[in-house]
């Protein structure tokens, strides 16, 4: 029957208090007169009651700590650390390192002592080499003269 079909649709809303006073009154009158709909209504009520007792997810406080941390991580926030607040510290640190490096470098005098030794050594070697070469040339020349004198080519 149409009345029963309509009544069944309204029973769920009736259980949740979603019917206006007129609809509510009409349904209640129908339930009083229709045993089949009354039985159906009891079945709907039991279903809603049972499903409402379904266990719900439970969490502890630590869950929310992790929950918030994950959101912050996804948004690029790390426990409230503000990158721009580290800039002054970074600047001061850079200046300190620069000053340290500047004042730690060798002085002019000591630099002379640390002159590449190969330069001085090469100069000394060069002078010696020249002397040796000159001496050897002189010896060769003398030998050649001697040889020529011996061979009668003078």
């Amino acid at each position, binding site marked *: 029957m149409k009345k029963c079909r309509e009544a069944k649709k309204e029973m769920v809303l009736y259980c*949740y208090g*979603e019917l206006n006073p007129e609809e509510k009154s009409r349904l209640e009158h129908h339930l009083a007169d229709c045993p089949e709909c009354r039985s159906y209504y009891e079945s709907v009520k039991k279903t*809603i009651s049972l499903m*409402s*007792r*379904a266990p719900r*997810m*439970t969490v502890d406080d630590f869950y929310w700590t992790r929950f*918030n941390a994950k959101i912050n991580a996804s948004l690029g926030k790390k426990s409230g650390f503000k990158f721009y607040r580290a800039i002054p510290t970074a600047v001061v640190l850079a200046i300190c390192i620069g000053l340290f490096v500047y004042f730690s470098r060798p002085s002019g005098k000591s630099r002379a002592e640390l002159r590449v030794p190969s330069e001085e050594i090469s100069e000394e070697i060069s002078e010696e080499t020249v002397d040796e070469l000159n001496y050897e040339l002189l010896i060769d020349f003398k030998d050649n003269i001697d040889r020529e004198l011996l061979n009668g080519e003078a």
Partner: protein
Amino acid sequence: MDKNGDEILVGRAKAGSESAFAELVRNYREKAVHIAWGITGDEQVAEDISQESFIKIYRSLKNFREESKFSTWFYRIVVNLAVDYQRRKKLRSYIPLMKIREPVEPRNPALELKAGEFNRVVQNVLERLSAKQRAVFELKNFQGMALDEIARIMKCRTGTVKSHLFRAVEKMRKELQDRET
């Protein structure tokens, strides 16, 4: 959180106040997780969906015109993500996905169900619902929202919400009746 309180927090958060956004998270996180869990039945998925919802809110807060309540906008995001997840699930397994922290003693002796079996039955029955039916049932039955509020969240007519609710309860009723016999 009342509408005025939300308006103030949203205004401050839009202006860049991180503490205001953090307070919005604090006020809405519990309900977000429960709604997502009620629709999906999965703790980890519920957590992911809730977090993603807050991230979406954070990124689009400046574009929020405040034509609807913040709560309506926020829950719409949560419900849409959860419903999308449910729809994408290829297999509706009978295996319960949620972790039950406390066993529930059935209060209806006529059914004579043990606590573990009761949880299993309930979860199985919920899995039979469509994603939208489950969403409407969660919002109405467990969150106590009014039908017109649910309609605004789900961007549909109130009549559609009533239809989803009726079908959800009818499906559950038949499932439970079949198990009794």
